[in-house]
């Protein structure tokens, strides 16, 4: 990723939709791809079992549909990314070219994991989500523009309001989604915080 210093206030491109509520992270990245020591190569395996099942049934999964090949924005429904905390799921999506996820709601650990690697998960109203899915069926290459400054999503000529916690929004706009730098700033304060905890402080001394 070379965009780290640039921020992700604006993301432009095209979109692909995954239908269905409660798509869990096992679906996004099957557990058999959690056996490596790195996240390398995960982009090839996103939604793998769903894609294989679609193929076997004579259907084409959106991630195998040439009409959405270059999509960089993922449109989803409710509770997307629920279940396992595996960061392999957002790492896989990111490596498959996804730069932002737009949906009705998200599994919280998944959404945190996405922000931690610079991928915003923004929320939209159910009616807007349904409309976006219709647009994408009609016009697969429709131009999308997500603007985190204005909290808007343009899909063609259509304008939708999006939601994102302010803290995550700022981190993404400023290019500071990697929280570690900020957390490392506070060395001595961390020790003071630990000392205030009765189970760690030597004065109150649980040990």
């Amino acid at each position, binding site marked *: 990723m070379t965009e780290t210093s640039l921020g992700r206030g604006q993301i432009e491109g095209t979109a692909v939709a995954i239908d*269905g509520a409660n798509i869990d992270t096992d679906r996004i990245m099957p557990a058999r791809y959690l056996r490596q020591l790195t996240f390398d190569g995960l982009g090839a395996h996103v939604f793998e079992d769903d894609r294989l099942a679609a193929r076997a049934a004579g259907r084409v999964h959106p991630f195998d549909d040439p009409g959405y090949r270059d999509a960089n924005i993922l449109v989803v429904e409710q509770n997307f990314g629920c279940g*396992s905390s595996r960061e392999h799921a957002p790492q896989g999506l990111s490596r498959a070219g996804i730069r932002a996820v737009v949906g009705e709601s998200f599994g919280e650990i998944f959404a945190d994991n996405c922000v931690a690697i610079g991928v915003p998960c923004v929320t939209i109203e159910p009616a807007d989500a349904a409309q976006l899915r219709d647009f994408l069926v009609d016009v697969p290459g429709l131009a999308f523009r997500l603007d985190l400054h204005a909290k808007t999503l343009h899909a063609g000529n259509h304008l939708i309001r999006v939601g994102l916690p302010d803290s995550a929004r700022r981190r993404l706009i400023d290019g500071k989604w990697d929280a570690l730098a900020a957390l490392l700033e506070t060395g001595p304060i961390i020790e003071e915080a630990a000392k*205030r905890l009765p189970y760690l402080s030597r004065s109150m*001394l*649980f040990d």
Partner: protein
Amino acid sequence: MPETLYSKVFDRHIVRELAPGQYQLYVGLHLIHEVTSPQAFAELRDRRLKVRTPERTFATADHAIPTDGSRRPYADVLNEAQVAAIERSAADLGIRYFSPERGEHGVVHVIAPERGLTQPGMTVACGDSHTSTHGAFGALAFGIGTSQVRDVLATQTLAMTRLKTRKVAIQGRLAAGITAKDLALHLIRRLGVRGGVGYAYEYCGSAVEALSMDERMTLCNMAIEGGARCGYVNPDEVTYTYLEGREYTPVGSAWDRAVAYWESVRSDPNATYDHLVDFDASDVRPTVTWGINPEQAVAIDETLPDPASFNGADRMVAEEAYAFMGLTPGSPIEGTPINVAFIGSCTNGRTSDFEAVARLLQHSGRKVSPRVRALAVPGSQRVRDELIAKGIDEVFRQAGFEFREAGCSMCLALNADKLRGSEMCASSSNRNFKGRQGSPTGRTLLMSPQMVAAAAIEGAVVDARRMFSGV
């Protein structure tokens, strides 16, 4: 002002406010395992960072480790590489590692409580969503991803926003033969798998107070399955009795100071919550899932619901579930044939879970159906040792179960313990997601360990209360 345990513990662990609504939170206990930590250690090495507080970091191998008695080096090179990596990282960085070689390993959410590491009023983080389990002690415990594992290793802190709180009060008593697992599945069925998104669940009421620590862990373990990143129970005498005398719990006058702190973090009687919901424990019956997420569940005496009884999105998920599971709306859940039975996991892999099942097996003298492959996988080697000392391993073997070594095993099938093809598994684990148990077409029915044992014997889903009625 009266406060909840959630806000007391959260506030106490704030290092500073990073941005409006976002806090740097101190992590009192960090648990790591072999699957979600290697990339975090690699980043530490790349950035030339140390582990800031190795003495508050504890490691084990659970997710991918074989449970068939294999010894190092494991034949599966990927399992071996993951276990070797955490072993080496722990040794290099001064982290206590509960080692398979020394027979100390186990599911991270089983070993931390059993050793007394998890205590009330702590923040607990782990790269695993079922970290919610530790909330049973009145800890604030939540699952994190690998980037956050890196953050905690490097700083012992996390960037976190506050959750809303929902008071989930369960009054009355669970009837005889009804387990904490049935309660957990019942609550998820009623509140939904996304009902808890944005919330911490406080489980309370007389039915919860009457639960043992093992049962409270089962309940809190499944908070995440209802969408709540953490769930907790206020600490009480049951908690303190459990903790006393464990290797990492304080002793002597330190114990008294500890109990005083633990009492101080309990939710105040008039604390305000963002939402309240009440349940009657007597409504809970043995509960079994029929679909592809844990809210798709029915009581054992019910028939499977008509997809038309659900609204919009959930109707589609119900239709998808029926197509995947090969089940038919309107048919009873009882009598659904199974091929595999699995007792174990961080949900139901503790000593009391196996003891309860062993009692039923022993007194009924019943055996696993020849058509069923049945696995009993202790949650930790210590659980396994306790079961062996009580002769319970033999009860399981005599009944036709394989009695394995500790690990996550067929809960997520990262090792060789997998479903084959479209096998149907009666499972005491926590997720019935498509493909969860290692075969993309494998199917899972979640239920209590007692119900798994009954299904293993019958070769089909059956009411354990009836099967073991004489016991």
